């Protein structure tokens, strides 16, 4: 089923272990500063794993946007609000754990329907994604297929994304007051 075994797939285990430890530490820590920094580290780790998973464009975006801008936004919000969070009360802890365990069990039940990891002939990898590879050569003739799909074949998607970012920027400006008055009010 798996034709080629290359060395890079051994890094999967390393990154999975590190991501798990970072995720659990984020949930357990009470210092918001540590949680925010660990979120940045989580993004960074997932971006490195993206490189190992052949998704270099996604890794680039995740490094710049996920590890950079998100961390700065969270740090800024932490500055304007508070540094510590209250511990989780026991009743809430058990209720959340119950919800999470049920949802996780349902997802594990659906695991058998997922394609095998790394299978080139799985339904997800066999049809339209691979057709874009050959179509790009005839239609657009640029080397990076991800860019070709993003800006040409699915260009309307990208336009919608721009609308979403514009709406979010407008919403932030309306909520916090135009002209950056929000930071000064706290001082």
């Amino acid at each position: 089923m798996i034709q080629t075994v290359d060395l890079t797939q051994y890094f999967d285990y390393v990154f999975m272990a590190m991501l798990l430890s970072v995720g659990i530490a984020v949930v357990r820590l009470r210092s918001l500063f540590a949680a925010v920094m660990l979120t940045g580290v989580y993004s960074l780790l997932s971006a490195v794993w993206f490189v190992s998973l052949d998704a270099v464009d996604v890794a680039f975006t995740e490094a710049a946007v996920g590890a950079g801008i998100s961390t700065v936004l969270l740090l800024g919000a932490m500055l304007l609000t508070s540094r510590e969070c209250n511990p989780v009360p026991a009743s809430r802890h058990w209720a959340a754990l119950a919800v999470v365990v049920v949802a996780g069990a349902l997802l594990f039940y659906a695991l058998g329907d997922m394609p095998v990891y790394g299978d080139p002939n799985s339904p997800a990898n066999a049809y339209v994604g691979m057709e874009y590879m050959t179509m790009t050569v005839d239609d657009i003739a640029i080397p990076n297929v991800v860019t070709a799909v993003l800006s040409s074949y699915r260009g309307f998607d990208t336009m919608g994304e721009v609308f979403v970012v514009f709406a979010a920027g407008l919403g932030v400006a309306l909520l916090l007051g135009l002209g950056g008055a929000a930071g000064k009010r706290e001082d």
Partner: protein
Amino acid sequence: MTSIPILDFAVALGLAVAMAIMLARLFLGPTLYDRVLAVNSFGTKTVLFLVVFAVMVNRGDAIDIALLYALLNFIATIAILKFFRYRSLEVALSEIAIRRRDTGDDAQSDRSEPTGGA
């Protein structure tokens, strides 16, 4: 001179172990500065890992990402330190001087002002 994939793989694994050790310090770190140091060092090791990985699989694209990380890591460290020194990311240097004059803290203002970020 050709690349030696097994050696690169071993070096990359060693760097991954170093990253994991940095994560341990990041979890434990008693003070804030320990955490900042651990994040900075973690970023350096990530850059090294990516570079070794790129040479191992002979792929030039990952080098660009490593370059981006190297830039981002440095800027992030300086930004976090500035944030915790001045409690704000948007304080201008002139405002810092005014604030110092108001609070009467003029002991080291002349020397520390030009460095700004640190």
